[in-house]
């Protein structure tokens, strides 16, 4: 993969910038159960409280990338659905965190056991998540060691329930493919590979999906330039950025 070196070269600068509170792997400390004004009904619990602004530290530059998703812990009085507890007890150690927000349950599993957790969720009675709605990724460049979130939205056509499974990945980390669990993942994983550069082991045909086969870089990464196009941009987005910066400086002088 010829494009691999470039983002890797880019990474140190992006991981160098974030503020000192970087041990962001643990999401947003205020995991202390949010003060719930109206305790009770799930409906009330699903009302999000606007978060108290992130811990102090006024950012010098306004465009500082957020360190990661909040992954709010569920309110203590909300019953945890059976499929979440089944996964927690069935695959001990795989579940890192359980999160609930505006009615959606999210289970965060370790990247190495992502496919295992998916197989479990598909096959276990009471879970039966036989339908892969969506598989995508989110780039959090400020989260130094685990840059990507891999996000799968699952649905059960028999039990009519939904869950989201997430895994945190490092930049060069390879995650086991779930094409064996749901063939639907084939193109979705190709798109994640194309757009984010996440590689899947065991994928039958890991090629670019939407971009041309000779495209350089991965457009959905946060450090990929928005403007374009141009020959240099196609060949090397980072060089193109430098060239543009030089042009802007020459212009202002």
């Amino acid at each position, binding site marked *: 993969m010829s494009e691999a070196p470039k983002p890797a070269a880019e990474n140190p600068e992006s991981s160098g910038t974030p503020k000192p509170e970087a041990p962001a792997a643990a999401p*947003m400390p205020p995991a202390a159960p949010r003060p719930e004004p109206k305790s009770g009904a799930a409906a009330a619990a699903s009302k999000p409280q606007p978060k108290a602004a*992130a811990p102090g530290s006024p950012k010098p530059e306004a465009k500082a990338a*957020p360190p990661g998703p*909040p992954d709010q812990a569920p309110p203590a009085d909300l019953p945890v659905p059976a499929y979440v507890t089944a996964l927690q007890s069935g695959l001990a150690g795989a579940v890192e965190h359980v999160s609930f927000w505006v009615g959606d349950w999210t289970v965060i599993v370790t990247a190495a056991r992502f496919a295992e957790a998916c197989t479990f969720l598909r096959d276990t009675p009471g879970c039966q998540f036989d*339908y892969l709605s969506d598989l995508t990724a989110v780039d959090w460049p400020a989260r130094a060691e685990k840059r990507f979130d891999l996000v799968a939205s699952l649905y059960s056509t028999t039990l009519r329930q939904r869950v989201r499974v997430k895994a945190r990945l490092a930049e060069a980390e390879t995650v086991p493919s779930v094409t064996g669990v749901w063939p*639907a993942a084939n193109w*979705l994983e190709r798109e994640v590979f194309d757009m984010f550069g996440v590689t899947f082991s065991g994928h039958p045909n890991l090629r670019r*999906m939407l971009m041309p086969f000779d495209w350089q870089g991965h457009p*959905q990464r946060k450090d990929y330039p928005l403007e374009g196009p141009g020959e240099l941009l196609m060949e090397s987005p980072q060089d193109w950025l430098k060239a543009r910066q030089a042009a802007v400086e020459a212009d202002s002088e």
Partner: protein
Amino acid sequence: MQTDTPRPMFDTDELVINMGPQHPSTHGVLRLILKLDGERVLDCDPVIGYLHRGIEKLSENRDYTQIVLLTDRMDYVAAATNNLGYVETIEKLYSIEVPRRARYIRTILSELQRVASHLLWLGTHAADLGALTVLLYGLRERELVLDLFEEYCGARLTYNTMRIGGQPVDVPPGWDKKVLAFCDVQEQKLPEYEQLLTSNRIFMERTKDIGIITAADAIAVGLCGPPLRASGVYRDVRKDEPYAAFDEMEFDVPLGVRGDTYDRYLVRLEEFRQSIRIIRQAVQGIPEGPIMGKVPRLIKPPAGETYHAIEAPKGELGYFVVSDGKSVSPYRFRVRPPSFCNLQALPKLVKGHLVADVVALIGTIDIVLGEVDR
């Protein structure tokens, strides 16, 4: 075609050919690499991305309110449902209450859009199979829907007709009567299509037992919408996870039995009737009241993420939006396009069929390349 004693002069070779991206029956810029044995398709590899405009990336650099009109450009023959899915996702993320009247208007618009989208599908699908009359009939009725949309919001194709929190404008006076009149017209025209196609011997020969997919396969490969239901899977987002005002509507979900192209045709034809049924209920039961909920001046949802799906004419249209709580643009904007997921099943469907059936099968999964590529 294999013969028992192949003569060297007439021996057959596997042939790899390109179909598209400029082929008229691919409904846009879809390129299929077909591996053929004579007329029979051994393998098929769709190549997409010719219409990729980076709508997801673009949306991450636009305000929440500006994204509505980008969603128009995905499935451009069903812009209203794209709008609906997007605004409902942000409303869910922001916990905005939408007034009941606005939800009814949205229901009417999305079902009108379903009728319009299915009409275009019906016409082009039939035209691909040689029945050109149906295309003219379908476009004739679609024009009536476009007129209704034009009267409601001023546009005929890319409507930009929904806002986060409600509807930008109320229905114009007399519009409801016109919608009901359209329902009557559409219901009268449906037998015309059926007369032309349903027991048409050529149409049946071209569609029956073509591209059969079982229920288990359809679920596994991620089919959604009418193709999934034609395989006998009871799955309709309007029923399972009601949105807009669908929880107050009475309608049936048509299911197929065999999962072939003919069943997919029948399912969509029945969906016309159910959509008309929903439109009538919504128009007659539309409540009075405001059309816009309480929305902050600056749309800036609290940090969090959500996935929300609606039943677009093509299938499950989902939006996954991540907000960082600090910015007026989404941190991550992801669309789960139904056409993309349905197109993925095409190689499975076409295997073993003739090249001419590939055309029928592209038609039957009802793709719009603007949505596949985004």
